[in-house]
């Protein structure tokens, strides 16, 4: 009985500690939820996304429309249920009315569905880049200023076929919505140009041992297209190098991102010269980009150059703050004014002009890049070409684009 009472007491104390920290935000602060992967296989990515978001906050000196910005962090582990759990906590316990995130593809799809149940909260994407987060069955209160994974691939398929002369390419990618979108974006152009993709390997996220996957790639392909992120990319590349892999690589946007390029080990050798495409290029010499890099570097633990995640969260946080500034920080009407402002928002980012389409998905510039070694020994994405103002249907008329069907493991296909 004594034990029983003590247990009850412990439970009571525990409940008290975790009870909703009542949303008692004073009138002179505005709470913004920041949802990213601060745990699990994408931890590095999440940490850098926070630097990006905080760069945007620092740019406004921590205030918007005279109110102090209070960032409330929520952590997920790249799984959709963890993202929804974190979003629920931010919305229902911490009482945020504006939420920036999440980071990863499947998380985006899940949070979009959650957004539909919270019509008075405004959701602005982080870097999640699955196509159907905004293309099919979108949520009225979910905005994406950071483009999707297929848009990021603009120009790469043609470049691989025409300039690099690859005719047959095998793909290795993680098995979820974002890599499906990336492979779709690459193959849309590559297959149209006349290329073939005889083999596609989908591996579970968080897989460590890729040597069996590498052994199963056909030996007669000209190159391997790799769309893996974070630790997965590092493992694949290291084991590819250890196994004496000789076929050249083509990188997905996050495979040759700073989060991977800054890893230590021998994988650097296989990465040099790898072409890729994405929303950023490290050697971009536009003044706006350089200013952004300097501002970003003031954040603790920053990479030599901001990753795609820092960039995406910066753009989305910046858009959020610009929108809040326009409505004077007033979200008391359930955020309706804010959402109107965001829909019409068009602004200059470090990587060019960004505006939204009717599904609230961004139209922005995409950068074709190639990995090179910088003067200081760091690996960098060298800018090859800018593809201006890519929209979500990749320039194809919308009805024709919708006929291509939803992205999945088997779509598209050109063996």
């Amino acid at each position, binding site marked *: 009985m004594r034990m029983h009472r003590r247990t009850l007491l412990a439970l009571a104390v525990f409940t008290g500690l975790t009870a909703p920290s009542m949303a008692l935000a004073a009138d002179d602060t505005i709470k913004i939820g920041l949802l990213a992967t601060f745990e699990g296989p994408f931890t590095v990515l999440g*940490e850098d996304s926070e630097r990006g978001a905080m760069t945007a906050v620092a740019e406004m000196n921590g205030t918007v429309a005279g109110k102090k910005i209070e960032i409330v962090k929520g952590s997920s582990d790249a799984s959709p249920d963890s993202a929804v759990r974190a979003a629920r906590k931010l919305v229902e316990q911490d009482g945020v009315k504006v939420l920036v995130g999440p980071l990863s593809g499947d998380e985006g799809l899940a949070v979009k569905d959650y957004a539909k149940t919270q019509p008075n909260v405004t959701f602005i994407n982080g870097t999640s880049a699955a196509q159907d987060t905004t293309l099919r069955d979108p949520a009225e209160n979910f905005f994406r200023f950071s483009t999707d994974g297929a848009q990021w691939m603009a120009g790469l398929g043609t470049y691989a076929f025409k300039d690099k002369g690859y005719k047959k390419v095998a793909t290795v990618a993680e098995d979820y919505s974002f890599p499906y979108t990336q492979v779709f974006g690459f193959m849309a152009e590559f297959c149209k140009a006349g290329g073939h993709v005889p083999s596609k390997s*989908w591996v579970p996220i968080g897989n460590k041992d890729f040597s069996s996957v590498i052994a199963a790639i056909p030996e007669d392909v000209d190159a391997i297209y790799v769309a893996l992120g974070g630790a997965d990319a590092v493992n694949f590349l290291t084991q590819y190098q*250890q196994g004496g892999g000789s076929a050249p690589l083509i990188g997905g946007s996050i495979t040759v991102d700073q989060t991977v390029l800054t*890893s230590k080990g021998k994988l650097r050798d296989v990465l040099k010269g790898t072409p890729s495409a994405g929303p950023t290029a490290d050697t971009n010499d536009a003044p706006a980009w350089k200013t952004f890099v300097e501002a970003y570097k003031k954040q603790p633990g920053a990479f030599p150059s901001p990753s795609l995640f820092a960039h995406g969260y910066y753009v989305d946080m910046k858009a959020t703050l610009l929108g809040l500034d326009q409505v004077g920080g007033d979200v008391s009407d359930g955020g309706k004014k804010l959402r109107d402002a965001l829909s019409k928002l068009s602004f200059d980012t470090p990587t060019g002009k960004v505006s939204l389409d009717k599904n609230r998905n961004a139209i922005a510039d995409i950068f074709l890049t190639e990995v090179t070694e910088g003067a200081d020994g760091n690996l960098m994405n060298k800018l090859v070409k800018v593809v201006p103002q890519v929209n979500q249907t990749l320039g194809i008329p919308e009805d024709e684009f919708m006929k291509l069907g939803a992205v999945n493991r088997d779509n598209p296909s050109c063996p």
Partner: protein
Amino acid sequence: MSLLDQPSSSSLAGGGMTRRQAWGLVGLLAAAVIAWLVFAVWPDWLNAILISKKAFVSAILNGITLAGLYFLVASGFTLIFGLMRNVNLAHGSLYLLGAYIGYEVTNRTGYWLLGVAAGFAVLAIVGVVMQVFVFRRLEGDDLRQTLVSIGISIVAADLMLAVWAGGTYQITTPEWLDGALTLPIITAVRSNGASVFLTYPLYRVVVLAAAIVIGVGLWLMLHRTRVGMMIRAGVDDRAMLQASGVNVHAVFAIVFAVGAGLAGFAGVVGGSALSVAPGEDVRYLLASLVVVIVGGMGSISGAAIGALLIGLAEQIGLVYFPTYGIVLTFVIMVVTLAVRPQGIMGKAR
């Protein structure tokens, strides 16, 4: 018993064979099929079904080396459980801490072997400290031990995240472990008649060899030394062992040191083959749990069999049905629990 048994089994197998002989025949047949699969040049139809011989044989070899790694982690886990009935859910954290320490030492001194030794030694000390300061206080209280070890693993994960951040580290292996071995296994024949042999990373062969040596060493320690005798006696009846004048606490400390040290060792070896990143602790904890459940709690040979099954299932699943590969592991676990709840080599208690 055998008198009663024999007629029925011989009538089952027909031809006057005993059950034992029948199993032997099945075993021989299986061995012959595997040998043929590994050494023969495959006909086209088989290549069509199993992607390619290179993929199949690599998956088998990778499964076996991965099993070696799982065995190293799980053997410590199973020893600690077997002796102390202590489900140490912080075991995965020991793996990850060992890997980080191995990385630091290797990076600073330039000697990989020193990193491996440090991973073992430091974690052995950590293990003793945990046993003396934490688990000794909770003796015989399973629930509290479990909860406290979960607590330790959560705190440890965050501390390691604070020190080493979320980056992915790769422990650099020395030059003499680099490169690939050419195995006498023909994967294909070129049109000009030249044979293509399978190459396999040397380092992975070394991992497997280390696991076998350690497995045999552990078995010898348990079955041929006085300490081993005490440990086995402790597994069977702790109270009786204590009554016969053995310092049980010292035995506990030794087991904890060996178990934790092995986890640290596996961390360095595994971190060199794959990579070191946050989240590995949970992955290896889960792997050792499954291995130990399948193999049987408290049994070294059970851990070896369990590791082999899980390693092969993971790799074959990854190549042939990657999306549902993870299911295979748990199917093995569920079947084991349904048919033989104490595990393949476990003793019914």
